């Protein structure tokens, strides 16, 4: 097993970075580790289907060279499910019909988990009125803007936004 500084930790397991630096994090996940949750929609950063968390921050794994993530902690949709079953947001997606075909869903969910952490830290978005505000309520407009990096060809957006606001929107307007 690789040493932690020389390894990429993926869902808690140390993984040796690929020898060929051309391998993207997405290809490492899907083709070498058989973690097929993250999807390859566009391979150009444009659709968000490949979204995973790196040290808790959402990124598009298709534009990430895997070697660059050595020493970091990557969590995919497979890693979000806890011992007591699905992540609360996964349950909310089921409840609110936050998907149809499901292709974009792992990316949507990882992205929303990252979004919640950003809101918590006070990261502003383009539609945040008061940039100086310490706390930003995850209302519908904020969620829509913040999730715009995740496309859904089935048009399940209403369910997606509902699932997210229900899960994180205790202070929602």
């Amino acid at each position, binding site marked *: 097993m690789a040493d932690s500084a020389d390894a990429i930790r993926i869902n808690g397991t140390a993984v040796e970075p690929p020898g*060929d630096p051309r391998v993207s994090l997405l290809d490492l996940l899907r083709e070498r580790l058989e973690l097929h949750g993250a999807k390859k929609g566009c391979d150009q950063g444009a659709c968000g289907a490949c979204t995973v968390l790196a040290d808790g921050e959402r990124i*598009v794994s298709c*534009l990430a060279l895997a070697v660059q993530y050595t020493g970091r902690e990557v969590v995919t949709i497979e890693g979000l499910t806890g011992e007591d079953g699905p992540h609360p947001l996964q349950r909310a997606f089921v409840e609110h019909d936050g998907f149809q075909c499901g292709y974009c869903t792992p990316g949507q969910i990882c992205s929303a988990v990252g979004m919640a952490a950003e809101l918590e830290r006070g990261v502003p978005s383009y539609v945040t009125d008061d940039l100086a505000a310490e706390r930003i309520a995850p209302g519908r407009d904020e969620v829509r*803007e913040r999730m715009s*990096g995740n496309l859904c060809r089935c048009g399940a957006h209403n369910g997606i936004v509902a699932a997210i606001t229900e899960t994180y929107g205790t202070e929602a307007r």
Partner: protein
Amino acid sequence: MIPFTYARAENAADAVRLGAADGVKYLGGGTNLVDLLRESIERPTTLVDVTGLSSAIEERDAGLLIGAAARNTAVAEHRLVRTRYPVLSRAISSGASAQIRNMATVGGNLLQRTRCPYFYDADGFRCNKRNPGEGCDAVDGSNRTHAILGASSACVAVHPSDLGVALAALDADVHLHGTTGNRTVPLTELHRLPGDRPDVETVLEPGELITAIELPAPPPATRSAYRKVRDRASYAFALVSVAAVLGVEDGRVTAARIALGGVAPKPWRARTAEAALLGGPATEQAFRAAAEAELADAKPLRDNGFKVELAARTITAVLGRLAREQA
């Protein structure tokens, strides 16, 4: 994608030592470079990862020093950026998606390459940026998203950065480190206009590294804003964007700094408009006249004439809003 080797730089000196060889490209978040590697538009033999270099954001004199490796999100969320330089926070959060902003570095954002579709389509079209001298298929082609200011007959591409437009309006300086030492260039002089060499996009020497961006204190008693107009409400490049810093006292303009995005090969500092405004009345007519003065030299192409009026209206609207906030 052709094979390359990968090395991680520990500090700026290390990066520049590694970067001095032929065929080296620096690697930030990779969000533009990886795409270009896949298309074989960029063909480096070595990538030197510079994300381990300074990403600190700290007060310097009355201004701010931002390490080139700072992620776009980290800049946009920084308390001093949100309160003192709202134009910068807003410009960054208008760009790309949250995922990409988490990966993208400040240095990489400034040096990202154009989104001209002919530049990206390496198989089918001629492009002077990719193959100097072969011609430009955008000049007489589909050029709705292309430049109206500062372009040449060799290249009409626009620079895609939002962050850079805010930095241009904020009078930022770019700190560079190269084999011959350190130097500083104003952000407005980092990018070159295309002329007959559109493949040479910046004043950087081979192997020269961006180490930091320095922002002076904002001019006293001013407010700033960024507005981006695009084909859809979110997650698209600018058709036109406006960054403005405006001071108004007793109905007169005491300070004006304006920069435009989406209209030129570089973040476009609108100095003609600024000169027209300074000391004059802060009225809608004056704002419109200043915008028109700036755009008097605009050279629209077949498909992008709409940008002239769109830019005039957006400048007028942004200045109007900033003036009302100070009334």
